[in-house]
């Protein structure tokens, strides 16, 4: 990936709070990251870690109330998406920033044909007439590997299988040649053999189209295979960020280490007993004043109760939000 290039998306200090009957929930706490052209950034975390909310916040997809994006900047194409008109946001969403959602069953409208749903962004955002939009829609279906595309445009979503529907979702996201594609757990609802097909498709499409991708998942295996850089989230914060090889070879945050060790493998050594991370992920009722992971951390210190660690560099392109210094210790034995 081109290093040092101007980032296509630059997020700084993003904060999102949900107002609920039980008080406020601080879902995203000062998240900062950037996305370089053509890069695939993996975002890993458990449910409730704030990974989806971060991505939804930055393009204004969260209903308000209850959501309240409290602060930060999201620079895209020279504009701050958090402080621009709704009209401008609408011209960006679905056009220059594409979205793929987790569940292909519920994100397509069952009463419209696939063709109609594919042509909608083409006509709205690119101003194509009906005939041109239809031709482009067929091209897109062909691009994502759906056989006999021209005929299938007139089919309804229920006539497609789960994997095919996810291909259609990808085609819709790609319709307007986005610069950035945000994929929120795009393969989680799919079976492994279908997931393998979709991952293969994404690898191909990246080479052909070269857009930057943010890929949200909880599956470390998927991340290992497709990401260039990985961001690990916990308690609404980025706790570790590193190039993919570095993250798996030399994880530095205690949470990342624990997470990598809890996952059993289908190949290699079989462990007699699974490693566990004791306890539960936190629900943040207030802005964190201490480390969110300290209750489950093997290396918690007195300082972790008093202060929320800031991200600090520990290697080239590698940063963690943790006070503990693993030093030269071999992490497998840690």
């Amino acid at each position, binding site marked *: 990936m081109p290093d040092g290039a101007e980032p296509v998306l630059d997020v700084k200090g993003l904060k999102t709070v949900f107002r609920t009957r039980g008080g406020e929930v601080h879902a995203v706490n000062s998240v900062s990251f950037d996305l370089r052209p053509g890069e695939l950034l993996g975002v890993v975390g458990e449910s409730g870690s704030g990974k989806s909310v971060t991505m939804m916040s930055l393009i204004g997809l969260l209903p308000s109330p209850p959501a309240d994006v409290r602060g930060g900047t999201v620079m895209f194409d020279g504009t701050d998406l958090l402080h621009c008109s709704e009209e401008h946001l609408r011209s960006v969403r679905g056009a220059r920033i594409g979205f793929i959602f987790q569940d292909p069953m519920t994100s397509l409208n069952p009463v419209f044909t696939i063709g109609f749903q594919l042509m909608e962004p083409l006509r709205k955002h690119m101003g194509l007439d009906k005939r041109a939009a239809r031709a482009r829609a067929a091209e897109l279906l062909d691009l994502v590997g759906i056989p006999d595309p021209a005929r299938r445009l007139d089919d309804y979503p229920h006539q497609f*299988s789960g994997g095919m529907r996810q291909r259609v979702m990808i085609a819709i996201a790609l319709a307007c040649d986005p610069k950035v594609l945000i994929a929120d757990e795009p393969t989680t609802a799919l079976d492994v053999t279908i997931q393998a097909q979709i991952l293969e498709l994404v690898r191909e499409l990246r080479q052909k189209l070269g857009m930057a991708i943010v890929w949200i998942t*909880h599956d470390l295996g998927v991340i290992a295979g497709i990401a260039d850089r990985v961001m690990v989230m916990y308690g609404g914060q980025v706790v570790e960020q590193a190039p993919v*090889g570095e993250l798996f070879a030399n994880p530095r945050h205690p949470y990342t280490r624990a997470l990598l060790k809890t996952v059993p493998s289908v190949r290699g050594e079989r462990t007699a007993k699974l490693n566990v991370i*004791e306890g539960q992920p936190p629900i943040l009722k207030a802005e964190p004043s201490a480390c969110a992971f300290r209750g489950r951390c093997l290396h918690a210190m007195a300082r972790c109760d008093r202060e929320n660690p800031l991200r600090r560099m520990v290697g080239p392109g590698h940063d963690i939000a943790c006070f503990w210094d693993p030093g030269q210790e071999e992490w497998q034995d840690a």
Partner: protein
Amino acid sequence: MLDRDAPATPRKLVEVKGLKMYFPITAGVLRRKVGDVKALDGISFDIFEGETLGLVGESGCGKSTCGRVILRLYAPTAGSIRIDGTEIAEADNQTLRPLRPSMQMVFQDPQASLNPRMTVAAIIGEPLDEHTQLSKTEKLDRIYELMDAVGLNRNFANRYPHEFSGGQRQRIGIARALALNPKFIVCDEPIAALDVSIQAQVVNLLEDLQDRLGLTYLFISHDLSMVRHIADRVAVMYLGRIAELAPRDALYDRPLHPYTQALLSAVPEPDPGIETDRKRIILTGDVPSPANPPKGCNFCTRCPRVMDVCRDIKPDLAEIEPGRFVACHLYETTAAAAGSTGASEDYERNQQGVSL
């Protein structure tokens, strides 16, 4: 682990033979029957006492139906189910009721399988109300004992399910399944709805309980890596039939059926070094509809090694090595020697990046 892998004479606790479960497809106002969804199309296997049989497959392959039929939550269309020597495939409700305590189930979604209006104590105590005559204090003691066994705090007995996290709710479901001292538990995707860090907690709990109470599990899951961890033997299902059934290590080290090979190859490895170089077997297309399965082998529409015979004749599940069952024409007795070496060598070549 080893001591329970190989007891001197393993006793069959569950014996399933030629089990079929067809769900009728109806049409029109008169609900005329127009076809069948063949959710289970003749499956046979045994589960030995104290072991965990993993049942894996993709969604729609019939693995959950299999778990439910074995516990007689459905009435099977044909076939035999013997649990602890008793034939229950045709048994009526009166006959089944006294047998129910020995066979229990842990469901996939702890949110949906717990009544939100009942307290934890009431949920865990309900089977005791139904099947035992314990006094109030005896019952409460038993509830506390069960909560301790699954690692739930006794002080939470009067709380409601919504006050617990997903992992804790699954513990409540497990405590309820244990209430009547069952011998056999069907775990239907017990960890699928949980986060990665919580999955390991629940799996370890299930293993501890098995060691302590000598339980026998049918562990249904689509997560091949977790099944490798927990199961002693593994059955792979495809479209209502068993494709392969083998001891765990044999299956994961050297899968024989082309579907098992593709399935294992599709699981991504959490290691970028391996992932980038690894050769994958990518299947084309989707699983056909179980209402209209292909003639011949169910897998023939997607099989990378399909032959002419596969499109005509359904292969039977045959024991080709001691303890290893495969339903595939590649391993038919006539061509056993040539076929079997060819296919598995091929697989090993494909997976070479992995074995490093």
